[in-house]
């Protein structure tokens, strides 16, 4: 008589998918590096604002184009800042930079968008990937030979107020949808880390060298007006 053995479904599922991680667990690993991540985003953001003020090509860019530029620059900046630094390992995977932190977590830079599908829905953050098989696996925290074998997290940014403000977060996804499960806001601090070489737009203002355009000198009346004459009102 043959016996049928049923596979342990739960175990198999966990073999193929990393277990869920809450915010606290994830931040325990990432906390010491958050200022680095902030620099990775804010440096390019400051450059972007300069360009958008001065370069006509940037003025016409739509949000998606801006995100492509910003993500690319943030990746370049991450390489400059983090390559060779203890605790970081940088991997290029499918033309995307993956930052492996302490050999525990894989971080990817992405733009996120706040969405509210229906009026009664709570607004939530979403990625904007195409739902390809690989993407679904990646953000559903599934294990696969083609993707980094660590729990994945997003170093995300939102472009707000008509692309005049940025909000950066550490976000975690674990579903087959684009929805983010939780997001931790990064504090807004100015970029502090030194950069290698970033071409800057030439300063257009030479205000400090500018004179006021008027001079003030004494009139004849000034020499004549003294003491109590001033107050008497003439």
């Amino acid at each position, binding site marked *: 008589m043959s016996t049928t053995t049923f596979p342990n479904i739960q175990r198999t599922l966990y073999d193929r998918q990393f277990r869920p991680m809450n915010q606290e667990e994830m931040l325990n690993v990432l906390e010491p590096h958050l200022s680095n991540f902030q620099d990775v985003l804010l440096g390019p953001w400051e450059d972007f*604002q300069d360009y*958008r*003020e*001065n370069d*006509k090509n*940037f*003025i*016409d860019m*739509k*949000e998606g184009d801006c995100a492509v530029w910003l993500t690319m620059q943030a990746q370049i900046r991450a390489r400059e800042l983090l390559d060779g630094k203890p605790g970081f390992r940088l991997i290029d995977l499918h033309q995307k930079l993956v930052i492996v932190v302490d050999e525990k977590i894989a971080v990817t830079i992405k733009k996120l968008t706040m969405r509210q599908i229906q009026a009664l829905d709570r607004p939530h953050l979403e990625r904007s990937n195409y739902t390809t098989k690989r993407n679904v696996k990646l953000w559903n925290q599934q294990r696969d030979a083609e993707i980094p074998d660590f729990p994945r997290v997003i170093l995300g940014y939102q472009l*707000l*107020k*008509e*692309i*005049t*403000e940025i909000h950066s977060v550490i976000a975690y996804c674990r579903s087959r949808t684009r929805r983010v499960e939780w997001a931790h806001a990064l504090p807004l601090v100015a970029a502090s880390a030194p950069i290698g070489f970033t071409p800057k737009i030439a300063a257009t*203002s030479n*205000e400090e060298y500018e004179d*006021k*355009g*008027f*001079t*003030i*000198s*004494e*009139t004849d*009346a*000034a020499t004549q*007006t003294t003491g109590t004459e*001033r*107050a*008497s*009102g*003439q």
Partner: protein
Amino acid sequence: MNRVNPEMIVLARDLLGMTQADLAKGVALNQGTISRYESGDVEVPDNHLRVIAEFLGRPESFFRWPDQRYDASCMYHRKNRRLSVAEITVIHAKVNLLRIQASRLLKQAKVTSNYSFYRLDQSKLGGPEECAQRLRQLWQLPIGPIRNVVKSIERAGGMVFRCPFGETRVDGISQWPLDAPQMPPIFFVHEDVPGDRERLTLCHEVGHVAMHHMPTDGDLEDEANRFAAEFLMPADEIADDLKNLTLPKAAALKSTWKVSMQALIVHANRLGSISDNQYQYLFRQLSMKGYRTCEPCPIPPEEPEMFRDIVEFHQKKLRWGIGDISEFLGESEEAFREKYGQNFSNFRLVG
């Protein structure tokens, strides 16, 4: 000693927003007596002048100044709601006081500027837009956005004050009396307006001052608006940028041209860069996102320097003490310190 100038009693009373009856009650006189003093029919006795001065918080010398007030007909307003007579009276009084104080200080201090203000003839030049282009040429402003409107006005000899107009929504007032050629044009902007609105308001007022010294057939406010738009955003230079205007693009252009997104949308529609439908759609979007009241990408206000420099000139070069200056400006020393700061290091005009 000069005789009492009835105009100054009215001015001091208006500054406090009082009626003749209020003043009469405060100084224990008849309203009829105050009325006669203010009309100049009767000389003000010294003892009455003393109590009036004390009650109105001005030195007695203030009431002997020979200056005159200018009424609303000499002033242009940029406002966004109808004002009551009482509100506008207080504002006019504040503006008149500042103008008189400036003219008193200019008796000792001569301001020589690199450029000048001009009274332009719209009918000869063709319209407000042409006047704006002409003034840009005369002031030798470079192509592109005007870096600092306040500075440009001061370079042309105009004087700008940021002063409180209270809760009333008067954005700006200007004065360039025809009968006082030695006085520069003076501009007053609400101290609480953001930088983009301050710039547009000032250019609107420059338009009034430059164009409206003679009667015109058109709507004065519309002409001043068109002048301001062309002065800040010359059509030749901005028209291409305004095509396919969206809110993110307007926000980007705002930081470049330092004008509000709303002004950009209105200008784009006026120039034909966007259709009426697009214009309406963009304004609906602005309303929906709350940008009609608070736009993204705030522009910092521009600070005037000329009046501060003139007061400093009196203090440092002419060696006047604060007591001298405050009395000369018809303020008590405490009021002067409160308004202009302890030692001018933090000088900001607030009243």
